[in-house]
């Protein structure tokens, strides 16, 4: 089968006046369906930039990127948001929840533009909350949740659309160790379901992942090393 993510000679630079900053340099990366990839590297090495481009939130300056066979850098904007809604789930360090809405409502947000009817929305929201272990807080306002619970809402929201690809940016940065371990458990369940997972992190806890993951080392916007976590 074709790889789910294919990146060739990808560059991203930012221009400010005369200065040109190369945030990503000649990135080559292939991710197979169902694989788990950990992007590691010091702050500023380009992890978030790379994830944003895979999510279609940012554009490369040059080079090729295909996600689910789609050349997403070339999609007109209207297709891009549709694409993101269908294929990508995102979990970020700052969960970006709507504080005034309940857990249930937060999880339903990404479903609204694509759902056929209310019954389907309700079913998917319940499923996603179950998977992320947050169903017991369904009617609580997001503002009243603990950090770990907020993150699980973010996970449920990312799962609600049942995406093939899950992107996590520093998912454990704001969690205590116990909650971070719970997060790893949820990840293994997603992995078992066959989801493709990309995680940008420098948290050593990911050494404890209970399944095989590929570690991709980034430095100054370039990939310097790719190895499997069990090597």
């Amino acid at each position: 089968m074709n790889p789910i993510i294919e990146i060739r000679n990808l560059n991203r630079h930012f221009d400010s006046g005369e200065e040109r900053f190369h945030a990503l340099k000649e990135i080559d990366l292939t991710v197979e369906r169902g694989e788990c990839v950990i992007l590691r590297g010091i702050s500023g090495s380009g992890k978030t930039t790379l994830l944003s481009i895979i999510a279609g939130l940012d554009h490369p300056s040059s080079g090729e990127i295909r996600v689910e066979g789609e050349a997403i850098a070339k999609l007109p904007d209207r297709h891009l948001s549709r694409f993101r809604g269908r294929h990508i789930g995102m979990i970020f360090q700052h969960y970006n929840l709507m504080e005034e809405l309940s857990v249930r409502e937060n999880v339903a947000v990404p479903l609204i533009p694509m759902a056929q009817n209310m019954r389907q929305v309700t079913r998917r929201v319940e499923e996603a909350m179950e998977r992320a272990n947050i169903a017991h807080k369904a009617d609580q306002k997001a503002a009243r949740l603990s950090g770990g619970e907020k993150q699980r809402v973010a996970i449920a929201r990312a799962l609600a659309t049942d995406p093939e690809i899950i992107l996590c940016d520093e998912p454990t940065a704001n969690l205590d160790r116990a909650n971070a371990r719970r997060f790893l458990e949820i990840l293994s369940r997603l992995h078992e379901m066959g989801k493709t997972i990309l995680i940008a992190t420098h948290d050593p806890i990911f050494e404890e992942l209970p399944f095989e993951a590929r570690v991709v080392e980034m430095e100054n916007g370039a990939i310097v090393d790719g190895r499997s976590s069990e090597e």
Partner: protein
Amino acid sequence: MTPVLLNTQVLVYLLSESVLWVLLAIAFGVSVHILWRWDFGSTSEEQYALERRAYLVMTIILAAFVLKFLLLPFFVFTIDRLSDLVPGAMCAAGVISANGYGLPLLFLKLLILFGLLLWMAINHYDLEAKTYPWFRLKMGLFAFLFVLVSIELWMDWAYFFHFDLSRPVSCCSALFGQLEGANPLPFGLDIPKLLLLFYLLYLLIVVAALAHQSWLELAGYGLFVFVAYYAVVYFFGTYVYELPTHKCPFCMMQRPYHYVGYLIWGSLFGGVFLGLIAALLRLGLGVDTRRMERIGLGLVSLFVLVCTLYVGVYYLRNGVLL
């Protein structure tokens, strides 16, 4: 400066058209550059930059076109208002023929309206298709339309600039009324034959649209728009005015007739243009245009309905026809 140029509405109109032209001129310059360098297969920095700029330019063009679209009824409204100033004019008919620029300008505006709708439709399908398959066609059409819009702007200014308020113009009854026994209808038609043709062509359009027969739709709409024009001016219009001698395409856009002219002409030209474009794009690009086809047919049906209702209501109220 002629006093007409000092009229507020005329000024607003001319300035709006001029500002839109400047916007389109910028878009034109950028488009030429983009077309020159465009290579969709490439993933180079330049091509990505072009694609993003192209998206921006298309958005600007679309916005400018939508505004131009709204300026056409405003133009008609403006010249209708000028009939108070122009001696001899009772409605826009006299004003539009105040000098040699008026009528050609009006035709040009209709042609441009068709072009704008065509461009918007191609743009829609092009963006829907992910790979910009009709990018060159669309940008080429835009370049052509820009030339037309430039001529239009020049004629806009010329028309209002050469307005001679001291020279009386003919009013609509002299322009469209009985010309001393001469038959104003083309091909030696009389009113019953004209009406028969009117309804038969409408029937043809309905059948062709329901069966998605593009060539038949093109022929049907193309003939219908002419026949409908004469039918409105020489038959249906007289029921709007409730006066058998009043033959004018413009007076019906005035207040005593509830501005119904905008509905009549708007649904006719809107419907015919959409119907033509739906058929053209199905033939030319092979895209699914059924929705546009339905909207076009709906508008033309609305047009036929409104015209017919005027006659029907008159008959019910008075028990006779005009």
